[in-house]
């Protein structure tokens, strides 16, 4: 078993209204950043977890997304591995 850090990014589904993104977009424009065309806001969730190997860690994280971390109706998610195994446990 080793420890893994995973990063989960949860994003609003395309086409679904993103009020946060809209408000931030508006604010950035009024602060003078006119080149900003679009803004979307999601969550970045960092998971430290113990698993047999990287694949197992990824799989567990995806299961967590489906069950809890992301709302399948309004959000999509992506999982990626942040670091190499930090240390092995017997």
């Amino acid at each position, binding site marked *: 078993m080793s420890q893994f850090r995973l990063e989960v990014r949860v994003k*609003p589904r395309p*086409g*679904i*209204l*993103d009020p946060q993104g809209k*408000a931030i977009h*508006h604010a950035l424009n009024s602060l003078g950043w006119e080149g900003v065309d679009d803004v979307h806001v999601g969550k970045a969730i960092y998971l430290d977890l113990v698993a047999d190997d990287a694949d197992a860690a990824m799989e567990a994280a995806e299961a967590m997304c489906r069950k*809890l971390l992301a709302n399948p*109706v*309004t959000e999509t998610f992506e999982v990626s591995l942040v670091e190499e195994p930090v240390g092995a446990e017997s």
Partner: protein
Amino acid sequence: MSTVDEAVTETLVAPRPGDPEITPELVADHGLSVEEYERILDLMGRQLTFTELGVFSAMWSEHCGYKNSKRLLRLLPTEAPWVIQGPGENAGVIDVGEGYALAFKIESHNHPSAVEPYQGAATGVGGILRDIFTMGARPVAVLDSLRFGDLDSGRVRYLFGGVVAGVGDYGNCIGVPNIGGEVVFDRGYEGNPIVNAMCLGLMKTEELITASAAGVGNPLMTVGARTGRDGIHGATFASEELSEDADESSRPQVQVGDPFTEKLLLEASLELIASGAITGIQDMGAAGITSSASEMAGRAGNGVEIDMALVPVREQGMTPYEILLSESQERMLVVAEKGREHEVVSILEKWELEAKVIGQVTDDGRFRVLEGGVTVADILALPLTDGCPTYEREGVEGEDIKLLRETDLSEHMLPRGNLTGLFRKLLGSPNIASKRWVYHQYDTTVRTATAVRPGGDAGVIRIRGTSKAVAATTDCNGRFVYLQPRTGAMIAVAEAARNLVCVGAQPTAITNNLNFGNPLKAHIYYQFREAVLGMKEACEAFETPVTGGNVSFYNETDGVAIYPTPVIGMVGVIDDASKIVGQAFQTEGDDIVLLGENTDELGGSEYLYVTARLVAGAPPSLDLGKERALQQAVLMMTHGRHLRSARDCSDGGLACTLAECALGDGEAPIGISVELDDDLPPVAVLFAESQGRIVISCAADQTVHVLRIAKEHGVPAAKIGSVTTGGSPFRIVMPEGKMEADLVEMADAYFGALPRIMDAPSTAGA
């Protein structure tokens, strides 16, 4: 259908390139029956375009067209001298005196909440708020009436938690206090939660504005948020049963609420109305631009012409069909005074919102839709909005219900265990337990007008600058309606009125939300018809006309319907806010008086559900005359300032009612010593939910007045005991038994139950 073929050659409305061909399957997918479609073809005198099919499917859906309910709803009383606006507008309006009018309405968002509880509930609140401020009234209070399955399921906890957060976040953000509601948990709502939201708005009577497209040549403008692809066909969706895989197939319909935009839209709308630059305004609710534009035209007897290419959109490449049917939130349609469009634009700009001219009012009575100047739909407005066929169906009571109602309950009169234990169990049942976990997530005090917050019998909002206040409550015991729809609906009205008089308010009018299963089934239609008839009878008895409401059918999953749940939202008026009474016992030595009579009617009670998981028996009987007398007596007592507290006796029976009075808000529970002499089994005395009862407390020297007033009204009344001290027990003595409970343990059961249950994880998946 040769006539149709001939008509096609005459029309100027050509099919739009890229649109699908109209086939019988497509028509069926749009929720229209063969007969309905033929009627449409007759009306049109030609073949429809795809866009027109979409328009008809929305306007002739159950949700917009009230196909299966309209005929029965016409039976409801709608008039009284104080009614300013009855059914037909965005909200009903009553006169509350001193130049003020109250707009109020209730609305369901059951189907969206079943799919996405947080957003479904949030957008439900958003929609009902818009219905109120489009009348020119400022929203001053929200109530929410909720039903879920049993909380032992993680999925149900997810729905419950999500709905409460959604109701809360939306209202909190806008700054409208929540003043009450209900939450019921019963396996009867397992697959189909009920989410009904009610809103109250206040205005000066002369500020009333209606939603009609008056003044030929006046421009039509969209204001507020942009139109996206979300919620397309929401109205049709709300008119269907949920299937097992509803989540997948319903995804594109999920709408996300943006309460911040709504708050700006609220302020901008009220400013627009005050400016006089507009003649009409309507929320784009179910069926979006289609229903708002055609209904505004229909009401004024005018036509409208709107161009989809002018509508501000959120996404590229949207077709007229999509734009017309989108239910994107936080949008309004306004009719401006010709020449004053720029005023509309500048008011909206101040609030950082958009307003855009998309068409105009015409004199030809037609609902005409263009796409960059090319006509894509052209329909007579009146038949579109009012021509939907209506049906009166056959209703037959289900045999199973008859049997259930006749269940012999005598074995349940013997307590299964000791009375105090059963009592504590009942206090901790989610249906009885304090709903603080819910309403502590709501802002109940913003706007500094909330005189009675959630937790009382009814919420109360004072009217600043006057001595007046308005009160509101929502009520419905679905089990009673299930077991006997007519009595059950009468009880819902009676309970609502009883809740109002307990805070000192004169019941004045109702709005209702009729949540039922599939009306095409005879036993459901029977429930619906009986419930409407019961409501009618009760509303007549209490002189509380119906000024509006909402019907939500098809609350079924896999063929199983919810309990029929006609939620009553009732409002009342208090002339002198200083006479409001609360429900909590106040002072040691006060007398406790029971108005009304105990019976052994245990049918449909929470006691049966908690102890035997049983929903059976006949609901308690209701005598409208006696009920009316009781309520008038209590009003007289509050007017005379004779009372320290008043609480209606409902869920959980007399024992639970006394407990709620003793526990108060939990800060200073107070003991009681009560002695009852009814010759009935203790279980019945303590837990039967007999109607027509109110528990009051008063200073000992007031008891004589209280008993006299009761007598004058022919209301049975008896001093049953007195309020003791914080250190004393909660004691009830009966001829055949006795119950004594510790206040600390009671408080823990009552206040701790929901937080403990909701500590367990909830999951979106089953």
